[in-house]
């Protein structure tokens, strides 16, 4: 019973969370989500301690892994920003890099018009 409840809590929280990520709408205040995950995790652990059978232990274990694992990942994701080599009000650095065809593209080719340069993590 406890295990099912714990697993349901982490399942629903996880579902809501990933739906938010897909809509690029991750809320800045994640405390309610983390609290829900931890609650589910605690219920999972309690269920395993109770030892009400193998099904309960499996569900409780799953709830505990997700319930504690997600907050642990969350702690890892808060990263220290480096000091970028360019500064507000300062000149942009020029560079040359290959585009998707392999041809070289120089950032200086954009001089004379404004642009956004976005560093992102690709598709790995």
């Amino acid at each position, binding site marked *: 019973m406890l295990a099912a409840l714990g697993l349901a809590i982490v399942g629903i929280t996880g579902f809501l969370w990933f739906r938010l990520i897909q809509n690029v709408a991750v809320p800045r205040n994640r405390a309610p989500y983390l609290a829900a995950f931890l609650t589910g995790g605690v219920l999972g652990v309690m269920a395993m301690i109770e030892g009400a059978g193998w099904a309960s232990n499996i569900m409780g274990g799953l709830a505990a892994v997700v319930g504690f694992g997600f907050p642990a990942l969350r702690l890892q994701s808060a990263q220290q920003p480096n000091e*970028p080599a360019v500064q507000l009000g300062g*000149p942009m650095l020029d560079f040359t890099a290959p585009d*998707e065809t392999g041809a070289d593209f120089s950032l200086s080719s*954009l001089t004379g018009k404004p642009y956004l340069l*976005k560093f992102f*993590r690709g598709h790995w």
Partner: protein
Amino acid sequence: MALVAISTDSPEQIRAGKDKHAANATLLADPDLVVTDQFNLRNPRNISPKGLGGLPIPTTILVDAEGIVRWIDQTDDYMLRSEPGRVREALEVGLPG
């Protein structure tokens, strides 16, 4: 507004992953993080298939027509990235008129 997006994808990966949303952007490859390091944007704590420190911190830089940096957005959390609302706000602030 020209958009240049650079990642550690190789040109082949860029071609494979390109979708209609990126149709107007210039997509650049930085698989060895040469440009990322030039801008000092490597995330040393990041674990990826390329090993430790193999990805950049997601960063958006707005440059005006004179080549001056007008806005730099680095999220303190890679899950947030540069949400469309924040980018639009920055365009209005960084490029008035």
